[in-house]
């Protein structure tokens, strides 16, 4: 009785796959604390209102921060939600290694479902051609996994600042039995009273980081010394330029005539599928350095996502279909 939660030493966490970290240079501000408290409240509300919630874990920084907050929400107990990773099979190896190490160290249940299995079972058909991506196929695998595992709340790290359609999404976002979002008939969300009631077969997507921005995430990572996949920090990599983005040369991307490979110092702002994640030139090797770099940046984070560029309305369309 009365045992303090602060039983972990400050640097209790270590992960061999984590990028090298330095002592924090960014201080926790009142607004970060407010966002942190809000996110923890939402995560606890998920546990209180749903029976089989899971965190959609991509190993990207947002889902890492989300899991970090979930650890705080349930401490000193273990995280009360399983981690679900939808693996396109086109991930960078660094991402997969980080995912496994992080889940192990935080003692999380990690569930992996593979797009390849959906393709093999005939649930999804591979796109072809030099710009083929498995990004859209993830939706099939995800909805199948939600159905199979009877997940009633899929908690994800999406933020409202990422894209215009997301700015209109609720924190508790209802999905019908087909996994679809209906932007024109969303439930009103009042005060901090969340309504997670649903009919059988329906589910919710819950976004505890809705009010965070990319900069908030990085400042929080820096303050809390949160481990991230090494792809987020500057490293030397063979890249080529396509539509103004730096794409990594990998086995998953077909080169087109005229693509010129060059070795450059880059980092990734998102760590999605290698086919659609562009890198940016950067020399930032620590979170505080990334914070400093972001202050000067003039391109939105999702600007480096090929999948959003397919049309002005790309995100809204994918979300309607049940995308993350």
């Amino acid at each position, binding site marked *: *009785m*009365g*045992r*303090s*939660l*602060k039983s972990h030493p400050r640097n209790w966490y270590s992960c061999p796959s984590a990028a090298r970290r330095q002592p924090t240079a960014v201080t*926790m*501000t*009142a*607004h970060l*604390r*407010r*966002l*942190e*408290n*809000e996110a*923890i*409240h939402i995560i*606890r*509300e998920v*546990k*209180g209102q749903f029976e089989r919630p899971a965190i959609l874990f991509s190993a990207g920084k947002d889902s890492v921060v989300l899991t970090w907050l979930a650890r*705080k*929400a*349930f*401490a*000193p*107990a*273990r995280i009360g939600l399983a981690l679900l990773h939808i693996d396109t099979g086109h991930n960078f190896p660094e991402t997969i290694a980080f995912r496994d190490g992080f889940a192990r160290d935080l003692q999380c249940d990690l569930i992996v479902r593979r797009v390849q299995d959906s393709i093999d079972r005939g649930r999804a058909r591979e796109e072809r051609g030099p710009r083929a991506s498995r990004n859209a196929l993830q939706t099939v695998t995800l909805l199948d996994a939600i159905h199979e595992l009877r997940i009633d709340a899929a908690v994800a790290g999406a933020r*409202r*600042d990422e*894209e*215009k*359609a*997301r*700015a*209109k999404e609720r924190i508790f976002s209802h999905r019908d039995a087909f996994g679809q979002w209906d*932007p*024109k008939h*969303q*439930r*009103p*969300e*009042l*005060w*901090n*009273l969340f*309504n997670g*009631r*649903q*009919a059988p077969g329906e589910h919710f997507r819950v976004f505890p980081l809705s*009010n965070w*921005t990319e900069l908030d995430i990085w400042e929080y990572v820096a303050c809390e010394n949160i481990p991230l996949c090494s792809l987020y920090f500057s490293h030397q990599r063979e890249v080529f330029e396509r539509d103004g983005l730096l794409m990594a040369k990998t086995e998953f991307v077909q080169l087109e005539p005229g693509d010129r490979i060059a070795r450059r110092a880059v980092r990734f702002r998102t760590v999605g599928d290698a086919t659609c994640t562009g890198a940016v030139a950067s020399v930032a090797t620590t979170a505080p350095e990334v914070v400093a770099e972001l202050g000067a940046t*003039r*391109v*939105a984070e999702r*600007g480096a996502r090929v999948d959003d560029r397919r049309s*002005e*309305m790309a995100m*809204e369309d994918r979300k309607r279909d049940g995308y993350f």
Partner: protein
Amino acid sequence: MDLLRFTTAGSVDDGKSTLIGRLLYETGSIFDDQLQSVASASRQLGEDRLNFALLTDGLRAEREQKITIDVAYRSFSTSRRRFILADTPGHAQYTRNMVTGASTADLAVILVDASKGVLTQSRRHAFILALLGIPQLIVAINKMDLVGFSEAVYHESRTAFAAFARDLTFANVAYLPLCAVDGDNVVERSRRMPWYRGESLLHLLEGAPVDARTNAMDFRFAVQLVIRPNHEFRGYAGTIASGSVKTGDEVMALPSKLTTQVTSISTASGATGMASSGEAVVLTTSGDIDISRGDMLVRADTMPDVARALDVHLCWMDSVPLIIGKPYILGHTTRRVQAVVTRLEHRVDVDTLRADDAATLDFNEIGRAHLVTSAPVFVDSYRLNAATGSFILIDPSTSLTVAAGMIRAATQGPLSPAAAGAVGHGSHVSRERRERHQQHRAAIVWFTGLSGAGKSTTARLVEERLFADGHHTMLLDGDQLRQGLCDDLAFLPADRTENIRRAGEVARLFFEHGAIVLCAFVSPYRTDRERVRKLIGDGPFVEVFVDADLETCRARDPKGLYRRAAAGQLEQFTGVSAPYEAPANPELIIDTTRRSPDEAAEQVLEYLRAAGLTRPSTRDA
């Protein structure tokens, strides 16, 4: 750096989205590629300059119809502060979104189109924001370019809005002229309006107090989860809704009312000796008491109401209207109970702020209602504590959130929905027995008319003579009730309605006691008077229109009110700055311009005798 949450409200074409686009643009919150995509979308819509609204109107239908459909949440920051703004659409039919956006805001910006002045919609927005308890308001008179940056036009709008907002509950209202399209007074003071000496919108936003709505006094902690990793540890996780707590504090658990001591507090950043509102914490307590999700920890000396009957404001948000008597799920803090609306007091016409009789609440309508819950809830009035004064109603058949609720007060109301329909379980001695005993019937005589028309004077004389002839009488008048029972009410339309409702209920009690109740109230609204008439069913209700022209009343001015109204010291004065609705079919009209008080009283007595409402002896006289 702290965080301010605010919301915007304005009519369809007041330029809200444009202003927000401007704020985002000027604070450097828009990246180059986003700006390019807006530029290309602007061109596709055939517009020659950058359409800032396209930054915020994210949904396909919004772009096609060039209107905002849903609440959008946007972030931006300056060197001093982070902002989250809820952009809510201004259409008449989207009250629901405004309420949603305002529910989490510390401040609201209302846009008024300078070329159109203060419209009905601006009034509606202000009313809703006041109802939602927003403490601070910034009124931005926009589109100053369309009125030649005229100071006179600005002041006209400002004065019109101020007259209206004075009676609403804002702690702080600031005004400024704006031209959002060109950015005048958005970030920098406009050079085209040198007569404006106040601060720019962004500076006002930077200086506004944060968390002005938080109740720092009363400790309320609703339990979200019980954290139980092993047999040694049992903690209660939740967010402190208001007040603060220290280790060693004695706290009381609701509903059990058992007390215990706080032994540890853990926040997101570790163990602490004290935590306050807004913090997500885990508390441990001494001794094993049974606490679970939905319970509340409070301090015994500042307890909330533990109630099953509530007097509330509801904003209806579903296309299926409210059904009286239907069980809904009430979501309050972390607690879920069943709730039934037993009675709808009135519906507020948000355009005129009048309280109307209504059988139900439709989509986007606001009304005052009485609720009964299946189990106790632990509540405060919304004004004192938004966190424990707010709730939602969920329709169990569709699972949709159908209403937002704000608690006015816990009541002693009927605790079973069945009993709610009954008029009351009053005295065992019936009115009929009393009437036989006293040899005259009970009645309500209702005097209505302007201030100074002679209502109280006439009523007093009538009472004197009735009493002298052995009648049971009671006199109720406006001043008497205003000083006691109704001293919490102002003179806004809804307050007036409430004043008359209370007067009517008091009159009914004396009526049931057998009295001839003489009521002298300005009672300007026809519907209010009709409601009182209905209170006593078929019982005798005599509406007396005490008619005197305004000039006569002004000349009499017995309480000096007309002089004060003329001097601008009184808002909402009936006949001068507020309407009076004369009765359509009163039982009696007395013209006191031409008759003396004695003659007027005699006219009333004559009517009562003729209607058989007096004692036989006086009838024959």
